């Protein structure tokens, strides 16, 4: 096949980004077509490449980039089913996000730079997906990191965005340093940086330190994919514009870590310890983030914690040795989470607040954004994992893989022996995955009910939108692009339905071996009966529990105040009056979590722990250095200056113009000299 096509896929968005950077200031009118068209063209090209490649095939091409003396660095392309699938996902989501952004950031003065960065980010993601060389992959990896930094800090006027962007950058870099060393070690052991060469070396057992390599790589993966110890940046990254959250923090960048592990899974299969670490990491991430999501009030933070948890699912699938399930879940999650974020953007756009409790006090929000209401419902059902939506099949694939790993017959699909996966890893993933299914259902239901179905919102008519956001809602960093009384433009609405299609239908693709699995390693993605029943049952149980908790919380909240059944204009008038006081919002999360609610809302104080462990010592060291510089080093400098000044002051004092003092000094000197001469001789 023509190599120019896959080469063009990452090149087009990069060129588009360069063009926007070049013309954005002078001709901002070109920014929109330059942002949308190259990305869309790349998506189409990715589809063409995938179709040309077909199934069960892979393509490798390489040209030497530079002689290094050690292992060569190659400009290599590696195409197979995984890269086709993920490039399609990236292309689709990026196109939708770019189109969505044209409306969402319509009046933003920094739209050109924003669009250019999104394009550059897309190009970097394509590069990561297509690259056949670890060093080139690292280049794309780091470009994504810096683009993420800039995009999170898009609203740099707010302190939240500034600190969030810095935090995201630093935390991911903290993972990237061991990642770099892991790549070096891998290249040194395998003698090449080409992924195919590395995998061949792994198959032949030529890797000397598989556990060390795997653990070093895992650090980078944990940073990029927001797994447990390094996950804290992702919820804070929600300070960025919502489309950025959809693109970067749901579908693509956080998926890069999962994708990398999937590509290098044979290396990880060499080390049972690394898989165990990965499974523990995934389990802690899943359960902890689901608990946190249950307690969050910020809509986007709920989704961010949900993303962290779903990434935990993927990591769990990888720990179980089944990369098909991981990538399957990655794709379906990418679709429905991007959809969730875009609908969240619409809702926030309409409600002018991020807080779901503030949304619950807002009358008629449901009727205000019907598209977002329905598509968010679809996406949440997919997130919960109820059949027949995409999330059900991919999640069940993960649980099935874990079940197989637990029983000692992991679905490695020929990448390694089934015994390479420790059964403990499978059990950990299985138990935590089942628990997370319950929690996920609970928080998704809570989100849905609190945001849209609160008594006030349900009772109120669709009219009276104008003062809907006048309440004391938390400040939303999004700029008021549109009049909230008007419906969202089409560019913000139809990407939702475009993304809703794979959210609903993608799961079916895994049922038949010749559909989706043929693109991948060929393993079965059909859910096993046992896990399907258990998973679905737990999800349903979570939904029901959350609903019951919500009902009781609503009843409690409504009891002292007004009658729940009271409908119509009186309720509308009563609400603004009640708002200055702390309105008891019916939050089932508080009921469900009990004493855990406070810690969960704070992310279990991981940030505070990091503050104590890392930030304070660093600050203290910086203060010490500052003290040493200001007080010690500068004392010498200042002392030199003050010494000269003092000397000059003394000499100046001597020049007082009084001849008598001059003569006194002169004569005293003469006498002194005479005495010295007399005594000395």
């Amino acid at each position: 096949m023509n190599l120019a096509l896959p080469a063009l896929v990452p090149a087009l968005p990069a060129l588009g980004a360069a063009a926007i950077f070049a013309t954005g200031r002078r001709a901002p009118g070109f920014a929109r077509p330059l942002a949308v068209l190259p990305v869309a063209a790349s998506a189409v090209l990715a589809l063409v490449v995938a179709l040309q490649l077909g199934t069960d095939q892979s393509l490798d091409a390489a040209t030497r980039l530079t002689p290094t003396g050690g292992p060569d660095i190659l400009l290599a392309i590696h195409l197979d089913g995984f890269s086709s699938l993920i490039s399609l996902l990236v292309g689709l989501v990026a196109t939708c996000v770019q189109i969505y952004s044209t409306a969402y950031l319509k009046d933003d003065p920094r739209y050109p730079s924003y669009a250019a960065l999104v394009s550059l980010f897309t190009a970097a993601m394509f590069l990561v997906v297509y690259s056949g060389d670890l060093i080139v992959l690292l280049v794309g990896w780091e470009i994504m990191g810096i683009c993420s930094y800039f995009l999170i800090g898009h609203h740099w006027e707010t302190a939240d965005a500034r600190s969030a962007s810095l935090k995201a950058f630093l935390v991911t870099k903290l993972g990237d340093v061991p990642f770099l060393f892991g790549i070096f070690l891998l290249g040194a052991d395998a003698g090449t940086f080409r992924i195919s060469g590395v995998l061949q070396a792994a198959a032949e057992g030529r890797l000397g330190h598989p556990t060390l390599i795997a653990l070093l790589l895992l650090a980078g993966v944990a940073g990029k994919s927001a797994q447990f110890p390094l996950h804290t940046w992702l919820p804070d990254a929600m300070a960025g514009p919502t489309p950025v959250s959809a693109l970067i923090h749901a579908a693509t960048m956080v998926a890069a870590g999962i994708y990398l592990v999937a590509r290098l899974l044979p290396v990880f299969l060499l080390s049972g310890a690394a898989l165990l670490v990965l499974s523990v990491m995934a389990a802690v991430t899943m359960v902890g983030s689901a608990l946190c999501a249950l307690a969050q009030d910020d809509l986007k933070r709920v989704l961010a914690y949900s993303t962290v948890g779903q990434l935990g699912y993927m990591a769990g699938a990888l720990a179980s040795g089944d990369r098909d399930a991981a990538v399957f879940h990655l794709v379906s999650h990418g679709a429905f989470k991007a959809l969730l974020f875009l609908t969240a953007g619409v809702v926030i756009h309409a409600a002018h607040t991020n807080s779901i409790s503030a949304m619950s006090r807002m009358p008629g929000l449901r009727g205000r954004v019907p598209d977002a209401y329905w598509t968010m419902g679809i996406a949440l059902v997919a997130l919960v994992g109820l059949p027949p939506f995409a999330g059900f099949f991919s999640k069940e694939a993960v649980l099935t893989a874990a079940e197989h790993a637990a029983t000692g017959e992991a679905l490695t699909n020929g990448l390694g022996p089934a015994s390479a996966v420790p059964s403990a890893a499978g059990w950990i993933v299985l138990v935590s995955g089942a628990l997370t299914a319950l929690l996920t259902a609970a928080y998704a239901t809570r989100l849905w009910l609190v945001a849209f179905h609160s008594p006030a919102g349900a009772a109120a008519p669709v009219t009276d939108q104008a003062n809907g956001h006048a309440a004391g809602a938390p400040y939303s960093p999004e700029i008021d692009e549109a009049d909230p009384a008007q419906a969202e433009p089409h560019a913000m609405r139809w990407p939702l339905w475009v993304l809703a299609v794979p959210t609903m239908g993608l799961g079916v693709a895994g049922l038949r071996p010749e559909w989706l699995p043929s693109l991948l390693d060929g393993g079965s993605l059909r859910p096993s009966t046992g896990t399907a029943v258990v998973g679905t049952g737990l999800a349903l149980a979570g939904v029901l529990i959350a609903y019951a908790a919500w009902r009781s919380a609503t009843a409690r909240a409504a009891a002292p105040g007004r009658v729940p059944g009271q409908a119509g204009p009186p309720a509308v008038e009563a609400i603004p009056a009640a708002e200055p006081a702390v309105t008891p919002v019916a939050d089932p999360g508080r009921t469900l979590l009990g004493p855990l609610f406070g810690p969960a809302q704070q992310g279990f104080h991981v940030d505070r722990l990091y503050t104590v462990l890392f930030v304070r010592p660093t600050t203290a060291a910086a203060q010490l250095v500052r003290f040493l510089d200001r007080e010690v080093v500068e004392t010498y400098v200042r002392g030199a200056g003050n010494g000269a000044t003092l000397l000059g002051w003394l000499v100046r004092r001597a020049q007082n113009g009084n001849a008598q003092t001059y003569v006194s000094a002169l004569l005293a000197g003469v006498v002194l000299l005479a005495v010295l001469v007399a005594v000395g001789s």
Partner: protein
Amino acid sequence: MLLATAGPLDPATRSFLSPTGVEVVFLLVGLAVLGSAVITVTTKQLVHAALWLVVSLGGLAIEFLLLTAEFIAWVQVLIYLGSVVVLVLFGLMLTKAPIGRSPDADSGNRWVALGVALAAAGTLVTLVVDAFRTSWVDLGAGGGSTKVTGESLFRHWVLPFEALSVLLLAALVGAIVLSRTRDKRLPRPRAGKLRAGKPVGSNGPAARVTASTTPPQES
């Protein structure tokens, strides 16, 4: 060659405990000279200082006589007592020195001056006593008479003598030039402002300009 007629350096023959009459007189007059000199530099009354200077310089003339330099003694009386002290008194009057006690006759430098003077005195006296403890002057009469002095002056010192006359002339001319009132622009001091004025240099150029442009009030 010059030391051919120096006195004997025999230490044993003369004792400090049995002074000669000349020595006693010298000591007494010397005490008077020293005392009046001290009063001269310490008294608060400026005119009295000049008069005590007369006593001191007159006493010195007597000392010159005792040292057999009679011509110099008369010159001392003539020039110092006759002209210099008169000049000094004129100077005091022309600078409108106050009559009577002036409490600020000594400057703030007094204690430093005292220290330096005492140190100088101690050093000098120690060195001089140490050097000339045993020297004896043979006072032959007529060693400094007018005849002898005139002969040496006009035989050996004629050229310096003539040069000195030129020096005096130059000093005369210089004094005239300096004390002549060149033009009327210099402000004349006013009697009431004598000690109330600011130190020179502390007033800026602006003050100087006003001072120079203001026409003198008198004349």
